[in-house]
């Protein structure tokens, strides 16, 4: 019962191994100290949930912000220079600010939720060489069920990560 952890010291070699895994249609995960262009797509990542969530957050914020201002002006109408109680021009700025705020919140929260973070204790941290601080440590994590009949992956080191 253990996943396979492969270590690379070079991003290009990791990318090459990832491409081979992709061709062999394996599920796997890559761990890198900085984002590598195209790597997520090789692991099967193809989603745009974060932008959609942010849009939803923005719409929600705009509705709440504008609705809140309309509601408070109807609850306590203040006559300022004869302006109507519901003056949408006057509400535009605060509506936009709140919409931006909730969109930001949803983008951050959505990113964390989709990534299942925070996750302080994870099996990969058991590996003694696991570190995001070193610029030359890149990892591939292959789940237990996918380990049979792997193509040649040419890692610097291979280790097992118990589940």
């Amino acid at each position, binding site marked *: 019962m253990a996943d396979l952890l492969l270590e690379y010291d070079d991003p290009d070699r990791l990318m090459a191994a990832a491409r081979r895994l992709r061709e062999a249609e394996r599920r796997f995960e890559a761990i890198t100290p900085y984002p590598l262009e195209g790597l997520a797509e090789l692991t099967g990542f193809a989603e745009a949930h974060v932008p959609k969530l942010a849009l939803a957050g923005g719409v929600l914020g705009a509705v709440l912000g504008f609705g809140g201002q309309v509601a408070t002006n109807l609850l306590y109408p203040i006559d300022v220079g004869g302006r109507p109680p519901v003056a949408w021009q006057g509400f535009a700025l605060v509506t936009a600010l709140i919409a931006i705020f909730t969109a930001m919140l949803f983008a951050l929260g959505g990113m964390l939720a989709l990534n299942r973070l*925070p*996750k*302080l*204790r994870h099996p990969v*941290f*058991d590996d*003694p*060489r*696991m*570190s995001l601080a070193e610029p030359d440590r890149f990892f591939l994590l292959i789940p237990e069920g996918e380990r049979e009949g792997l193509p040649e992956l040419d890692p610097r080191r291979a280790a097992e990560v118990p589940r």
Partner: protein
Amino acid sequence: MPQIFTPSADTWPRVGVGLGIVAVTAAILLGAGLVQSAYVTSVDWVVDQPVPFSHLHHAGELGIDCRYCHAGVESAPNAGLPATEVCMTCHSQIWTGAPMLAPVRESLAKGEPLRWNRVARLPDYAYFDHSIHVSRGVPCVECHGRVDEMPLMKRGEPFTMAFCLDCHRDPAPHLRPPDQVTRMDWSDWTAERAADYGRRAMEAHHIEPSRLDDCGVCHR
């Protein structure tokens, strides 16, 4: 590198955040409840007085009009607290030896006023004038509650800004004929009757709610 966090480390922050959310929600709800509670608004809290004067007895059972003692209510901002002489108008002859009334007699003898403790009090930044309210027919009971049922004086309504504004924005249901302002029991007036009377009274007195909630009406 080895694991930094124990297996339970992921649980504790979640529990902490959950408890935090519960605590913040509870604090907000408690705060909201507190500002409306009798503890803050003083409603129904009896205030200690030098003499345990009973409005229940004098106003309720004896039926003495409010204005017998609070003589300024129709013409002055303050309703007026009765001078010791007003008490002694009757108590020079009845209950003359009652120990309860000793401070009153002492006050008269020494010429020093009794120090009553304030029950119905507005903050200093709120301007309030009894005379206009009384002359337009806001009955005593609207703000002071059933004084005729209070053995010891207590605040009948929360004197919050919301309490004032509720009436200022919609005075109709609260208005009564000015010649009956001191009447306490209005249970025979249905809501429709009150609304109808209020509507006509507002027309007659040119009461415009749109002006009654201007800041300057109360904060001068």
